[in-house]
């Protein structure tokens, strides 16, 4: 496994595979700026086979694997021989249309990856903004630099490390500097937050959570309303949610979100112990 030094290396490797492809398959949809950030933080490594390219990104105490291959058979053959997959905890995301007939899930399960959980994408069109709701006089505010550690702590206890792409501290710092984290504090303590990413006319909620002891105080609603009020010009909202987290899905449906038929199968290898 070699460290990746440039974004170009990634795209060149993909191109090499695609040139020979008979039925190109991939779980990698690289965004140059994000790849550059992973490289800058020493997180991205690669392994080249003859018919496939594999990228590993370090995430806490495990690795996320991305692949591209000339066809499913070659992917299967080269993946099963990868030494790192035999000794390191590895997590794989497969983003597909719901009930896709060409799903890669059975192939991955046949070579030792195990289904861990599934995420579902929900989306809603833009619409007239909800009016902000100030709960008990507490108004959501944008997180500041002093909140990095508490935001990280709340995300780490509230979300799944393998499935929900939890941000590193440097990503939280960047989000704070870009005003992407709304929060409510109750008696100086972080009671809830809504972490989002906005790009042009689209905005995605990455995390929305209220600490358990504050859940009757309508802080979640206040955060959501503040988010929509700040995004009146947005035409598409989306988010990923764990597919069997029905309480969360019900809350999102209340705000107009519905499935857009895209799913993310999260798989783990045996070494992960998950």
């Amino acid at each position: 496994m070699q460290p990746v030094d440039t974004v170009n290396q990634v795209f060149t490797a993909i191109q090499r595979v695609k040139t020979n492809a008979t039925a190109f398959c991939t779980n990698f949809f690289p965004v140059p700026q994000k790849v550059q950030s992973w490289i800058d933080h020493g997180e991205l490594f690669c392994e080249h086979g003859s018919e496939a390219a594999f990228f590993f990104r370090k995430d806490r105490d495990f690795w996320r694997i991305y692949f591209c291959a000339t066809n499913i058979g070659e992917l299967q053959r080269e993946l099963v021989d990868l030494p790192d997959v035999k000794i390191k905890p590895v997590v794989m995301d497969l983003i597909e249309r719901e009930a896709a007939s060409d799903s890669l899930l059975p192939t991955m399960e046949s070579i030792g990856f195990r289904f861990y959980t599934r995420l579902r994408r929900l989306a809603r069109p833009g619409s007239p903004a909800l009016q902000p709701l100030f709960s008990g006089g507490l108004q959501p505010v944008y997180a500041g630099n002093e909140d990095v550690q508490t935001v990280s702590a709340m995300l780490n206890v509230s979300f799944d490390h393998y499935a929900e792409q939890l941000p590193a501290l440097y990503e939280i710092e960047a989000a704070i500097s870009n005003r992407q984290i709304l929060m409510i504090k109750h008696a100086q303590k972080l009671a809830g937050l809504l972490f989002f990413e906005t790009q042009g006319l689209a905005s995605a909620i990455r995390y929305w959570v209220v600490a358990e002891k504050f859940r009757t105080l309508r802080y979640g609603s206040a955060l959501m309303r503040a988010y929509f009020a700040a995004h009146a010009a947005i035409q598409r909202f989306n988010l990923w949610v764990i597919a069997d987290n029905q309480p969360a899905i019900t809350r999102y449906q209340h705000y107009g979100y519905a499935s857009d038929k895209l799913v993310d199968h999260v798989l783990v290898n045996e070494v992960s112990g998950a």
Partner: protein
Amino acid sequence: MKTVTEVLKEIRPEFDFAASKDFIADGMLDSFDVLTLVATLDKIFGISIQGVDIVPENFKNLETIGALLRKNGVQP
């Protein structure tokens, strides 16, 4: 045969693609949408868009997508 605008509208019906000069910067297409678009264009026009060409610059607007199709021998 479908036009590029019709294909885009099928992928993201909520957006007015004709009004944008940069679909990526405007958040109208994400990286998964781009891959869906590539697969659809490959299928409709019988081409194979090269991996090296699957970069945001080639999917910024109708003109750049048109140029990419022309590079692949298609007159959009």
